[in-house]
């Protein structure tokens, strides 16, 4: 976005005020800011729903064209999940709603069917394909709204407060899905008020305040400036604060910055425990889990990460100790010197390598063993 200003009416102040902001292809970005800072308007402007009075929005280096053709091109590449699913869903039956986006793009019916199946699997709503939307709960409707955006197979996915109103497990599942999209090469933008959640997930933060973008960069670069955090209606994430305070008190380095429970414990444990092994069970369609689980030590606790692995583990009635938050939980066990088993969708392999490398930096050299 180059110098973008937008107002709903010339009599009102600018909602977006000379915003300059660029989102790196393939990155995980969090859009942060107080209520009313302009986050949702920012998203609508990115999508071409609002046309800025000043400045321009570039997609892949090309300015958005506000013609019917130009806009439908943008919308075939950018998917958006609105905060309130009821503003997004307007068909009567689940599958009709999910089909709406791809149909508008002129995708053949067979392909749409495949996409609906895939999207429903991703949000773990497979059995609900022909269910009327009004029979679903708020949390379920949110999942369907996400499925609708997934079915477009966008290059950029915008999620406006995706976890608002969801219970903790459902929130984690949404963030797992965001990771999955990221690993499929999708650029993911998430706005949230949950500073801890954003901190544990994103590569970059963009902070909006009174319609201006006042910070773009790493989370730590922003949170270290307490004054700016305060003026932006935000608070420092608790993991960030605890790490900083411990470093100050003990005279140790603030960096590396732990963002997850396993990293925090690894850092304060200072390599005092010999770490355990994490047995890795990547799941791909058509493979089983029960046989492989019999090959790992029976006292190692089992965690699950990813929607397909979770479905499969429950279908096979596998023993599972960490049904949610499996990745952090399994690596926490390893940091604490216990072996663990992580069952995950194979697409997450790079994420697991990332976690192993990160924990090495915190002082825990965790060995992994893939069980096929």
């Amino acid at each position, binding site marked *: 976005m180059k110098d973008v200003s937008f107002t709903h009416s010339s009599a009102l102040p600018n909602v977006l005020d000379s915003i300059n902001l660029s989102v790196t292809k393939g990155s995980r970005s969090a859009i942060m800011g107080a209520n009313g800072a302009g986050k949702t308007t920012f998203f609508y402007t990115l999508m071409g729903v609002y046309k800025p009075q000043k400045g321009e929005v570039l997609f892949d280096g090309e300015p958005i064209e506000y013609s019917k053709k130009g806009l439908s091109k943008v919308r075939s590449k950018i998917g958006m999940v609105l905060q309130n699913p009821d503003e997004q869903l307007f068909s009567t039956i689940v599958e009709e709603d999910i089909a709406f986006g791809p149909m508008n793009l002129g995708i053949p019916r067979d392909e749409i069917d495949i996409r609906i199946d895939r999207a429903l699997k991703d949000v773990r709503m497979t059995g609900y394909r022909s269910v009327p939307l009004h029979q679903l709960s708020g949390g379920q409707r949110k999942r369907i709204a996400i499925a609708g955006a997934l079915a477009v197979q966008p290059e950029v996915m915008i999620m406006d*407060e995706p976890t608002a109103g969801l219970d903790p497990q459902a929130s984690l599942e949404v963030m797992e899905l965001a990771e999955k999209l990221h690993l499929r090469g999708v650029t993911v933008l998430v706005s949230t008020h949950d500073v801890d959640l954003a901190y544990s997930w994103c590569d970059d933060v963009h902070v909006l305040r009174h319609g201006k973008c006042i910070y773009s960069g790493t989370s730590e670069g922003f949170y270290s400036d307490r004054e700016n955090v305060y003026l932006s209606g935000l608070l420092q994430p608790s993991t960030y604060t605890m790490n900083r305070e411990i470093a100050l008190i003990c005279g140790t380095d603030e960096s590396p910055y732990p963002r997850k429970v396993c990293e925090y414990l690894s850092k304060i444990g200072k390599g005092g425990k010999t770490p355990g092994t994490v047995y890795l069970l990547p799941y791909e369609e058509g493979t089983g889990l029960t046989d492989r689980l019999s090959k790992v030590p029976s006292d190692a606790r089992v965690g699950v990460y990813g929607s397909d692995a979770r479905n499969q583990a429950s279908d096979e009635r596998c023993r599972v100790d960490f049904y949610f938050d499996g990745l952090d939980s399994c690596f926490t066990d390893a940091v604490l010197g216990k072996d663990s088993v992580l069952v995950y969708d194979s697409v997450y392999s790079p994420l697991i390598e990332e976690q192993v490398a990160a924990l090495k930096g915190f002082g825990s050299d965790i060995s992994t063993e893939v069980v096929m």
Partner: protein
Amino acid sequence: MSEPVLELENIVFSYGKGIDPALNGVSLSVGRGVKTVILGANGAGKSTLFGIMNALYRPDKGTVKYNGVPYVYRKKAVTRIRTDVSILFQNPDDMLFKPYVGQDVAYGPENLGLPSAEVEIRVRDSLRAVGMLEYRDKPTMRLSYGQRKRVALAGVLAMQPKVLILDEPTAGLDPQMASEVMEIAEQLHRNGTTVIMSSHDTDLVYSWADEVHVLMNGRCVYSGVPEGFYRDKNSVYLAGLLQPKVFLMNEGLATLTGCSVEPYPRTRSQLVGKTIGSGRGCGRLYVLPVPGMASDETVVKALSVAGISDMPKGIYGRSARKARNIASVGIDYMYDGPENCFLKCMEGKDSLLLCDPDMVDIVVSMVSVMASDGFGTIECSVLEPAEKRERKTPKK
């Protein structure tokens, strides 16, 4: 265990014939003055339970008792119950229906038949409490979501309920507003209101709750201290919930260092204290009571009398926060004042907390809990309130 203020016995409730009951035999009891949290996944029955407590719904089976007396579902009796047991719904738009902010807040007290002078006082006080007094004459439609949520809260506060139910009070609010709402809840608790809330924010709930009641598929599966529930990972998963980060980190810490998991730290500062271990010198915490009407000069004067100049300063309480005059004193921590000041003291520095007079006892008791639980020994001095200037030595 304090005496029960609300008792639910074997409550069954369904939204219609042939529909599965939303509540299926719930029994639980809320103690007077106990900070109570209702936990549960989406669809577990939390909001329905609140509807039952508020006499919005009449249970198909079972009894609800307020102060030991069963609810009677006649119009007058229901009004009486709702006066004492009020609810803040999750969505403010379910609560606001008058065109102007002031009218909306006045609606409840007027319906109680209170004299207009009393209504006026309540409207002003409750709008001030939520920081919306200057919006009194604004149309509610023109407010943002966060502002509407605060006006809705003011409307409930104006009823001066004995029991206040907050359904997801921080949902949709930015972190600072959420922190203010929690501060208001704390202050109401302090002043004798029994506060019951639901929230999906596991960590927030854990730092606040005395007691949790966990709902699952319309049944209450746990009632008691949070740790008793969070210790059992399987039950937590089954209930659609997660363990708080601070709880997990403390468990890990115990495994790493061999220390006991108890006492359980609930807050960041407590966990930091437990992580670094005792035996380090802490700085002193100065607490300055600031009444709402205190002027800039009196605050500055009180600080100079106490010999306090340059140290990190935090704020706690709604009137201290609204006393804009203290801006010139230079506040470092507008939010989470006690937490931030405690952390500064643990660094070995002195810090100052400007605090509502009625919140001083809470802060003093937080400090003593930290010491007795071994999270850190912070010396605490309560200064003379900002308005009084007779005495010159700080009271210990």
